[in-house]
């Protein structure tokens, strides 16, 4: 167990180093920040001064080292555009994105598994055929279109739910703001969460269904039936647990993409999250902000993968307990 953990952590560190190298190289290859920041009438001395202030006059290796040391302390420098610390800007926006991502992930995973299991067990039934047909829409329609359609239907036509923004928020602790505690916050969350989670839901559902059908064909399921275990126990205890092993990986990766793809949903719903911040950063070539965002997304992926690997370990005794007879 310890060896397994150490190995995975080392791998995670390696991945993060690679990503930092990429993020760091942004500073050198995506335009000259000094020119961007100072404008036309600055003198050479101004430029040199700014260069020194940003540390751009040092050797590349030293710059990279500094970048990493700073990154470990969550220090990504000052935004070129708004001249505020990047970390502060991200932290300010992070709660909105995380709340949206977590709610839509729960929506996608819970419904995805329920529908997937149902459509696998009741394969021929009318309802399951209906669910499968509808799920095609979720797979094939692009996120922004679903968002716009939902806004048109529920916000514009029916007027049930707000079309944009986060509603009222409540501050918890020093920096976290939540929309989960107010009625308007919750109402604002519904449409973006569905938009963001719909694709993942259909993906997870189809995956669970395919995997479950596979498992239901195995000998151990047939043997479980043959020795008289009730249908419910066979499906929900024996089959589901085996189904979830490969599904865990995909769900983990999908959670990462939910956060990464929040950009589009946040733009459609003008959600004040990190994704919207990143879009602005790209538009104004705000490199420190882009680098920080990149590192954050990478960290999310790496952490989720780590959790997935550990989950595997907990669920599957074949990894946990050494095999072999005698």
């Amino acid at each position, binding site marked *: 167990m*310890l*060896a*397994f953990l*150490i*190995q995975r952590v*080392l791998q995670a560190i390696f991945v993060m180093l690679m990503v930092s190298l990429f993020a760091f190289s942004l500073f050198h290859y995506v335009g000259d920040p000094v020119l961007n920041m100072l404008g036309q009438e600055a003198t050479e001395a101004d430029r040199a001064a700014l260069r020194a202030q940003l540390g751009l006059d040092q050797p590349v290796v030293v710059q990279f080292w500094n970048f990493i040391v700073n990154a470990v302390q969550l220090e990504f420098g000052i935004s070129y555009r708004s001249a505020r610390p990047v970390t502060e800007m991200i932290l300010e926006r992070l709660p909105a994105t995380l709340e949206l991502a977590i709610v839509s992930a729960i929506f996608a995973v819970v419904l995805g598994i329920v529908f997937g299991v149902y459509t696998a067990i009741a394969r021929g039934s009318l309802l399951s055929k209906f669910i499968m047909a509808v799920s095609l829409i979720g797979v094939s329609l692009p996120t922004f279109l679903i968002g716009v359609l939902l806004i048109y239907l529920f916000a514009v036509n029916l007027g049930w739910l707000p079309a944009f923004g986060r509603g009222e928020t409540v501050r918890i602790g020093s920096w976290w703001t939540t929309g989960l505690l107010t009625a308007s916050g919750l109402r604002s969350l519904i449409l973006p969460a569905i938009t963001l989670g719909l694709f993942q839901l259909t993906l997870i559902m189809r995956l669970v269904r395919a995997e479950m059908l596979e498992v239901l064909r*195995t*000998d*151990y399921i*047939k*043997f*479980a*039936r*043959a*020795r*008289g*275990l*009730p*249908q419910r*126990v066979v499906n929900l205890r*024996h089959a589901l*647990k*085996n189904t979830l*092993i490969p599904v865990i990986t995909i769900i983990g990766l999908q959670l990462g993409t939910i956060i990464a793809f929040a950009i589009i949903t946040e733009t459609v719903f003008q959600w004040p999250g990190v994704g919207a911040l990143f879009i602005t950063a790209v538009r104004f070539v705000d490199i420190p902000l882009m680098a920080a965002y990149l590192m954050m997304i990478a960290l999310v992926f790496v952490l989720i993968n780590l959790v997935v690997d550990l989950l595997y370990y907990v*669920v*599957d*005794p*074949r990894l946990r*307990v*050494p*095999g*072999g*007879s*005698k």
Partner: protein
Amino acid sequence: MSSTPSSDKPNSTNRTEDRQSASSEGPILSVRHLRVEFPVRHANLVALDDVSFDIAPGEVLGVVGESGAGKSMIGNAVIRLLEPPGRIASGEIHLAGRRIDNLPEDDFVRLRGRHIGMIFQDPLTSLNPLFSIGDQLVETIRTHLPLNEKQARALALDLLAEVGIPAPETRFDSYPHQLSGGMRQRVVIVLALAAQPQLIIADEPTTALDVSVQAQILGLLKRLCAGRGAAVMLITHDMGVIAENADRVAVMYAGRLIEIGPVNEVIHRPRHPYTEGLMAAIPRLDGRRERLYQIEGAMPRLAAIPSGCAFHPRCPHAAERCRRERPELIPSGDSLTACWLHDPEAPVVRRQPQGGERVVLVSSTPRPAGEVLVKAIDLVRHFDVSKPWINRVLERTGRVTLKAVDGVSLVIRRGETLSLVGESGCGKSTLARLIVGLYDLTRGRLFYAGEEITDLARRSGRRAAAVRKRFQMIFQDPYASLNPLWRVGAIIGEPLRYFRPEMSDVDRRRRVGKLLEQVGLSAADALRYPHEFSGGQRQRISIARALANEPEFLVCDEPTSALDVSVQAQILNLMKDLQQQYGLTYLFISHDMAVVKHMADRIAVMYLGRIVEVAASDRLFATAYHPYSRMLLDAVPSLEGTGKRRTMIEGEVPNPIHPPSGCAFHPRCPHAFDRCRREVPVLTIRSEGSEVACHAVAEGRIV
């Protein structure tokens, strides 16, 4: 006694009475005119047609037939676990006098495990890998018996001990992957028998096991069922297993029951020509035939079952009536058979089988030995199966090597067939791959026709190619060894394209056509894809591919173990014909002693990476020296041995990663003594052409 969780139901008391009365009178299982259909898109396939039989209390009914005959379908229909869209279309099934085929599903579920138990073929896949065996046992017991957690656990431990699982207390919390194949099948048996069902359906219960373990498991199953008075339906393709375990035998062909009778009658006086052919097609341990009797063709597919008697296209005696009229079961002596040969009024006349090959027994004089073709000196192949370095550092363990082949020397002469035999994990396949250069040698030297080819696996280029094309390999699984996206012509032509690039397309096509005809297919088959062929035909394609460049040496790794008996006979005959025609040399690997006896001139017996005995085939079968060779021979269920008693060999093949010290066989050997535990025996000449690695033999303690 029979208080299932459903004891509030009014009929539960009736059931108890049924149960008790059944043991004194009437059959446990009675199947009448059973018909199973598979409605598919364009047709309604009939998988079982008008099948009727009974099984009495305590009786073992063997159900035999080749793949596609519908034998597993019977078991699945009785326990109502047919794969969808299969369904029982008509007929009745009675269990202990009660009709069960029309029970609603909710009631039927309560029969499974409680009244009907079922055991499947593969113990490696029958148990849920994510739950401990104790978990699965307690769950099953508590489903059927009104016991609390603690009582169920106690019962489970008793049952585990009863089936011979050592240290049940510690095994209780093990997961399936921690147990060996034989141990897992014991757990499967406990699970199936936990609630003492009256009827056990065992579907190929030992097919996936090694022959020594097979004997143990069958013995165990028989003892447990006899002790509980349960009736057994033993479904298998292995006539030897039937001969030794069944009381009566039912023979299936194309979804129909074609013969049923007492085991001795069916095996020694078969009535139906198919049964006759099947018996004659089985390679025997007693006496050796030059060729096996061959039933032409293969089992028809469900979509194309012939009219009249389904067997008529393959039957040597078929008359006009057989093509038109379907025979029903007719009494003949103590048996029943569905064949017009036995019609009491106007029997169809029997024709003499052509050639009369099946009665020719030859005393196999070993062929005159040619010059040495393959010479292997002290071959060693280790696989690194260590954990990642970080585990080794933290757990303070070193590298772990699997010694798959651990010092093998052998000689193969031109024109002979050398057989490698041994149970799974003995290294026979690895050795074969070393010899053809598919694996690198860890150590040792290899010569082919006088030329050193030790580093062939790493070599490329013209000279290596010149050696490589002189030998070819035929693999076990005809489904996995042909690329499904290539036409047969391309598959067979590939070695030609590679080794003879100068050959024109026309010539190559002509050669492919000729090869196909040589292996009994037609030249037109070159345009078809592998999935259009049956298993036996695919193996013929594999052989044609191997023969493309006129090799002199073929390595055949279990070439018939995935095939049915009648098809196996065709392939073995073909291989023998080709050997005579082209003077081929074979290295023939098999776990089936009877097949080996049929094919081999000399035999090398392997155990855990080493050869323990080499001898001429006749010598080995007459008097094997090594205790392991004796055990292998003794464990084979034989057709002759109805009711035969044998000395049971304990244990299973140990994990080759941690082989026992000294002689690897010593923990299972009845003759082991101190020296065997310390010292590895080497192969020493015992008599002319025969070598044995055994201290007991060397010291004269075994004769």
